[in-house]
């Protein structure tokens, strides 16, 4: 069903999404390789010792990773929880709000797009993202190389009726791509199945968070177990910074400049020759 799905090219408002059924993820990391390959991102070897995780976190050239969370059990064997982690393409995105040049925008199909040509590498998006999903290389003086990097939901592929690279390559089909509403309906059904199988804490993540994510999850445990934020909120201060403070500041600046021009026009008449009217009166008896 999902393998052949493609969005309606005449309806850019259609909301698409990726869904990761973590119960079927085997942690093979094929998605990581496909992402690197399609996006031509450089290979970065920085595996953390003592884990099967390929990278400790996402970075500007590593847009998706499989997070490995070990769950020790009191009796018997422990289990590994795996979560494919990348940009969540939030409906209310902190990175879009924080971006001063609008390089990050809400694009077609609900995808949060990043125009690297407009990115100035300021890094404001990094702390604005509650998922640690967007990064800028830190280099204080070699700044021309700084550009933000994050999952684009393979916007170049999906806008050409192709599936995202990670979806295409996933050997267990645990990553699904399709209409967001349909995927959500499927996810809730899947959660019921998992609960019937004994996974009592199974849940859907991404349905309501931040206005609705375009990266959805069927999780085996609560989001906190995966280090995902519970009920994340878009910072009101961040929203005010961009949509309140900056327009107010610009309006005040315009008003101040206008006031100075009016003052200058009037003051030129009052203070002729740079003299105060009192000086001008007294000066009629003075010489230059």
């Amino acid at each position, binding site marked *: 069903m999902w393998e052949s799905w493609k969005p309606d090219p005449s309806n850019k408002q259609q909301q698409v999404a990726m869904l990761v059924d973590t119960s079927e993820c085997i942690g093979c990391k094929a998605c990581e390789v496909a992402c690197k390959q399609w996006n031509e991102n450089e290979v970065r070897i920085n595996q953390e010792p003592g884990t099967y995780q390929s990278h400790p976190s996402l970075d500007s050239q590593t847009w998706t990773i499989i997070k490995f969370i070990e769950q020790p059990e009191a009796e018997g064997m422990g289990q590994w929880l795996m979560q494919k982690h990348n940009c969540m393409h939030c409906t209310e995105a902190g990175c879009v709000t924080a971006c001063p040049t609008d390089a990050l925008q809400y694009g077609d199909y609900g995808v949060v797009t990043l125009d690297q040509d407009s990115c100035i590498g300021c890094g404001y998006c990094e702390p604005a993202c509650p998922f640690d999903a967007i990064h800028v290389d830190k280099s204080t003086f070699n700044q021309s190389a700084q550009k933000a990097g994050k999952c684009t939901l393979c916007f170049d592929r999906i806008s050409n009726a192709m599936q995202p690279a990670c979806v295409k390559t996933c050997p267990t089909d645990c990553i699904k791509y399709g209409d967001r509403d349909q995927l959500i309906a499927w996810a809730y059904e899947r959660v019921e199945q998992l609960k019937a199988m004994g996974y009592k804490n199974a849940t859907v993540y991404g349905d309501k968070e931040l206005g609705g994510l375009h990266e959805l999850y069927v999780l085996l445990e609560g989001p906190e177990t995966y280090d995902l934020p519970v009920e994340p909120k878009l910072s009101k201060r961040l929203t005010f910074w961009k949509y309140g403070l*900056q327009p107010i500041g610009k309006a005040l600046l315009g008003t101040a400049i206008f006031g100075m021009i009016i*003052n200058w026009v009037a003051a030129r008449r009052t203070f002729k020759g740079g003299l105060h009217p009192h000086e001008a009166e007294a000066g009629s008896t003075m010489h230059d």
Partner: protein
Amino acid sequence: MARTTGKKIKKFSLSQRIFHWLYGVSWILLVLTGSIFLWRANPESAATGLGPYLQGSVGAAARTLHRIAALGLMAAPLVWIFGDFKTVLPDLKELFSFGKDDLRYMLVAPLHYTTGKPALPPQGKYNGGHKVNFYVVVLTFIAFVVTGLGMWFGRGTIPDEAFNNMRMVHSIAFWGGLAMGLLHIYLTMIHPFTSRSLSAMVNGWVDLRYAAAEHSRWVETATKNGTAQIVEEGK
């Protein structure tokens, strides 16, 4: 050129002037390099905005210049403190004493500098406007230094919320400081009457007649104390 009495009174020492100009030039560079990104492309028009100019080598130069100018801004007060310490405490004492005459000055000044009326209350070496400007400078200086250094060196290591708060404070300081800074530049360099005070910050001397009108309390006190340095023009 305004007619004068031919007499000038010394207002600022060399160290004070270097402090002022180092601070002022750094501030202007910081404003120019720090505000480029505010002028975004308008999606409704063909205008591209200025943000893209912060990329590549131009962007790298702007960001590096922003940091160098920040160092200049932070170093500026040291020039005054180490160059002419004897004037630091008396000047700070006056700047931080805001009396009724200063308040009256602030209320009357906008109309006075437009129409010449009503009369200004007697002012010291620093008038009410100078004092308010100084308070804004001190507050924004602290805000810029703390949040600027925090964002420069703390990105990735300080908590995200702290970074976001620093950016917010930096922006508020920018808009507040910009409004006051532009008013200061206008009054000292463009306004037909008050721009006569500019010489005090260029060569240290200001026309005595202007000083007597604008800073009557200072001129009277300094003349009485014998601390006033007054010379004839050309000497």
